């Protein structure tokens, strides 16, 4: 079953997809704690980073005051002597310059280090997810779409990356700035500070209002974007059907509807988020005037100097900025926590049981290939049992054909045999060894598999065939390809075996893909063969040739074939007829025809006109 749904397109993911505003995590505290554990190894570095950040902030807060005192000095010395003492001024300015330099330096250093940490954490998260993937039971992936999981690896981890790299220190610097500026303002004059503080909460109140409003529109925008992208993806991938049924008009109508809704929420969310700056600026100017009035009064009394007023005004400017940033950061933190939650849920998911205690093995030299199914019961979920009390004995070297209508349980049997899923009841034994006593790796090393769904990866043909046995030599690969009758075709390609199979694997036909997977299986040279409807997409002439090669391969080996073609099945030693999960009949073709039951019925339907 193909689980590729929307969002699966690789090019849709990438940097630049920002955190989705409005997303809320399910358990903020727990997630943050888990995330912090990734930061644990960098504890010491983080302390340094915070120190640098704070130092940088302090320097940049103190500077306006010093600049103010420089201006003061100019005014004062003018008043006093009508002249400016440049040596003193030079001294002040040099200190100022050094402070600025240090501030910028520290800012850069902390940022530099923080990026190092965030990238390393990101690398670790991605690696953990990658390794986790191979340890999770297949059952987990049945309930999730590919798009979902891919989104976690790219988008979600990228969100965490950005937040760690920037937002974390931003919180520190902003809070520090806020506190520092407050202190500085107070140190200049508490009356003016009071005036300023009366006005500034006004700005924060307005900011909160705007953020709330725009959040709503942002969420809507994301929703409609998702809808329209889903529609686009569906219509493009199914474009042949759309054309064949003249569905273009309706498709466009539906598109226009969503497009309109998208437009509405798009411009609104943009507009509202754009209101912040002008609003903040105006409030800032308001504070400016008020402070000037009060400052003027105080200056007339001699309580403050011009330089001090000037510094104070600069601090007011510095006050608003952190407030807006903090509001933003809170938002970012929430959506980051939501992203982190998804990633960590994956990483902490329950794995397949450890196999350290499983030592059972089958000696390769004494391998026979007798397989026994004892009272097997199985279901993908607990309440729907598909396979009921299955019993069967397969002798070494026999060819077993599994037939039955679609969904009867044919592929399921194979998946259980290879322990992709665990049994509910009963057991399977190979040469007397219970497969649950063997490690999965040892068990699967016995089987060679060719699936109905051909899977090839973005590599060369050589690499893809060699996948069956990574240690194989080039010669062995050519031999396998020849046995699968794909060697001639490969040689007609411009780059031969070095031809890269592209992402959509569109440069080779379905039949040729299948031949490649067969070559891969041939190369793997395993003891038991499983062919799952392997030859239905290959034309019958080539199929004959493959069957001959396969026969060589299967000679002396126990093999299972799941197929629709009765001609393939007729050759089998044992036919298992499956319906609704149960074997309804078992035997050779002749025996089953004599019995005149389900199988005979199936077979005879070939001739019905």
């Amino acid at each position, binding site marked *: 079953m193909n689980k590729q749904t929307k969002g699966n397109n690789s090019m849709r993911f990438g940097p630049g997809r920002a955190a989705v505003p409005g997303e809320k995590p399910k358990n903020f505290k727990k997630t943050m704690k888990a995330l912090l554990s990734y930061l644990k190894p960098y504890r010491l570095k983080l302390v340094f980073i915070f120190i640098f950040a704070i130092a940088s902030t302090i320097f940049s807060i103190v500077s306006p005051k010093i600049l103010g005192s420089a201006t003061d000095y100019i005014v004062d010395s003018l008043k006093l002597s009508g002249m400016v003492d440049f040596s003193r001024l030079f001294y002040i300015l040099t200190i100022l310059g050094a402070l600025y330099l240090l501030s910028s330096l520290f800012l850069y250093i902390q940022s530099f280090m923080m990026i190092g940490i965030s990238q390393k954490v990101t690398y670790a998260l991605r690696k953990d997810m990658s390794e986790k993937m191979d340890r999770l039971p297949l059952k987990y992936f049945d309930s999730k779409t590919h798009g979902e999981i891919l989104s976690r690896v790219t988008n979600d981890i990228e969100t965490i990356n950005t937040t760690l790299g920037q937002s974390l220190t931003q919180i520190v610097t902003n809070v520090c700035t806020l506190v520092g500026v407050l202190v500085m303002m107070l140190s200049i004059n508490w009356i003016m500070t009071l005036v300023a503080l009366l006005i500034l909460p006004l700005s924060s109140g307005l900011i909160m209002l705007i953020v709330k409003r725009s959040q709503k529109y942002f969420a809507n925008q994301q929703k409609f974007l998702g809808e329209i992208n889903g529609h686009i993806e569906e219509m493009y991938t199914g474009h042949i059907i759309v054309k064949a049924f003249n569905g273009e008009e309706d498709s466009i109508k539906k*598109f226009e509807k969503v497009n309109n809704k998208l437009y509405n929420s*798009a411009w609104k969310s943009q507009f509202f988020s754009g209101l912040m700056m002008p609003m903040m600026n105006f409030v800032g100017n308001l504070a400016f005037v008020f402070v000037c009035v009060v400052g003027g009064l105080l*200056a007339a009394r001699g309580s403050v100097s011009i330089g001090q007023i000037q510094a104070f005004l600069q601090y007011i400017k510095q006050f608003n900025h952190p407030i807006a940033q903090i509001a933003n950061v809170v938002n970012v933190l929430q959506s980051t926590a939501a992203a982190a939650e998804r990633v960590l849920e994956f990483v902490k998911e329950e794995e397949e049981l450890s196999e350290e205690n499983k030592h059972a093995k089958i000696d390769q030299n004494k391998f026979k290939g007798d397989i026994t199914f004892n009272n097997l019961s199985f279901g993908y979920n607990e309440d729907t049992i598909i396979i009921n009390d299955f019993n069967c004995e397969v002798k070494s070297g026999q060819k077993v054909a599994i037939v039955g209508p679609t969904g009867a349980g044919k592929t399921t049997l194979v998946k259980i045999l290879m322990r992709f899923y665990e049994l509910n009841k009963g057991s399977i034994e190979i040469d007397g060894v219970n497969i649950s006593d063997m490690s999965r790796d040892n068990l699967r090393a016995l089987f060679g598999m060719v699936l109905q769904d051909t899977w090839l990866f973005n590599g060369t043909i050589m690499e893809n065939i060699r996948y069956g046995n990574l240690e194989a030599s080039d010669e062995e690969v050519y031999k396998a390809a020849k046995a699968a009758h794909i060697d001639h075709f490969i040689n007609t390609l411009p780059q031969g075996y070095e031809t890269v199979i592209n992402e*959509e694997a569109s440069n080779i036909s379905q039949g040729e893909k299948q031949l490649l997977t067969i070559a891969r299986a041939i190369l793997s040279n395993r003891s038991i063969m499983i062919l799952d409807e392997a030859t239905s997409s290959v034309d019958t002439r080539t199929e004959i040739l493959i069957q001959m090669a396969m026969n060589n391969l299967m000679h002396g080996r126990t093999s299972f074939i799941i197929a629709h073609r009765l001609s393939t099945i007729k050759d089998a030693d044992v036919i298992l007829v499956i319906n609704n999960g149960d074997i309804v009949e078992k035997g050779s073709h002749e025996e089953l025809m004599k019995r005149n039951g389900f199988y005979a019925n199936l077979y005879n339907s070939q001739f019905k006109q």
Partner: protein
Amino acid sequence: MIKLLKYYKPYTALILLTLLLLFLQVMADLALPNYMAKIINNGIALGNISYILIKGIQMLIIAFIGGLCAVGVGFFASRIAAKSSMHMREDVFKKVSDFSNAEFDKFSTASLITRSTNDIQQIQMVSVMLLRMVCMAPIMGIGALIMAYKSSPSMSWTIFLALVIVLSIMITFFFITSSRFKKLQKLVDKLNLIMNERLTGMLVIRAFNTQSYEEKRFDKTNKELTSLNLFVNRVMTFMMPMMMLIMNGVSILIVWTGAKMINMGALEVGDMLAFIQYTMMIIMSFMLISMVFIMMPKALVSGQRIAEVLQTQSNIKDPAENKTKYLNKGESELKGYVEFKNVSFHYPDAAEDVIHDLSFTAKPGETTALIGSTGSGKSTVVNLIPRFYDVTQGEILIDGVDIRDMKQNNLRDIIGYVPQKAVLFSGTIESNLLYGDKNASEKELIDASEIAQAMEFISEKPQGFDTEISQGGTNVSGGQKQRLSIARALVKNPKIFIFDDSFSALDYETDALLRNQLKEKKKDSTKIIVTQRISTIKNAEQIIVLDNGKMVGKGKHSELMKNCQVYKEIALSQLDEEELQ
């Protein structure tokens, strides 16, 4: 790329208005330092409170107007950007909806999806930024420059010094990072690709025990991505502190030179402070402009990709009005003869023909079957009939009318096409069936489902026809999907049926029942079947055998068994000698 500008043309008046508002906003912003200077010089310094109040209120009024203008700019900018993107998106979608298979092959479906989604998003983001911030930058920059020069001409050299330094740093940054951004994007794509492959091939990976191979493959790209990210981010993060340092350094410089001038009595303190403010504005606007250089490359690439789509014309076009011929769906007029006359076809860039000199006629009331080896051209043949591709030589005629002389809508109206791989859309079973004919009655849906052997499983589902079908049709089995796909075509009730290997996921019994029903209930229709199964076509009235694009046999089963070697081989591989009689 220039082509995309036409999307902004209808808003020229609004854009000009926006620029005007922007101009006013900037003017207001520029006037403020002046007021501030005056308040300090004449108000605070002289202890003139009423002056402070008056000037203060004036300042607030100007600030308010400036704020309103800013809001106005934001309003118009967001609407213009959103609206033009809306139209762009619509045009791209309409264009692609018109594309034939050839264009889809050329671009690839995935790329078309990205171009219609991500790329347009990029452009929208950039247009808003352009209108709001980047347009403001030159206005503010030049305005501030003028004001600064007016307040103190002799100090203006400090500004130029600062700008030169800023410019050179920006250019250096640009050169270092731009090529790396592209590489970064490629690496992310690759990471995605590997992850996706591991997900789709999970069974294979576990069966071959190649988990560590896959993990290493992923790790390699992960490492590359991380180190490139490290470099790029560290370089980018250098910008901010650097800019801050330059700005602060310039203010120190200004205070130093300003002090000299104040000493000489050539400058007032307040003016010096105003000068600092203006200089900051100039540098800020410069930095805003530099943001363009960062965003532009990405936006240009996106713009290019969109323009490519919009400029592509599908080769499959409807004929001119005066040359169009119509074939009515109604029974009496339309017979359903499909004739191939010396048809040859090769793909647009291919050198060799996929089909060569094919001639045959499919008659109504009969089943015409096409059989042959993989790559023999069977599917291609039937893809030509609905004009998914056009023939490169020869003609295809329906009731004597060349299909190229018909409107595509008309042509596809009379054909019921069932593809090899069944495609269902998200919705319900009912909505999918209605896709064949919007106005079909419930009885017609049931009838079609019965013929397609789908009625049984539909009635077994708790919600019957209202059963939800998820995107891609993943909650129904392969065989069920195919039957629904067939039922959909039946609902359409066309004159001509094309089944492109549509029975492969069905077991033999269902296959036989279906064809039986088809023959009985849709007696007068022309049935063209492409298949691999001999049993499906044994009793077809006409079997066409293809080999490497050429017809090597035409006739009934019994004839072909005698005189067509290829057919004989295929048949023998599937059935016993006796069963073949």
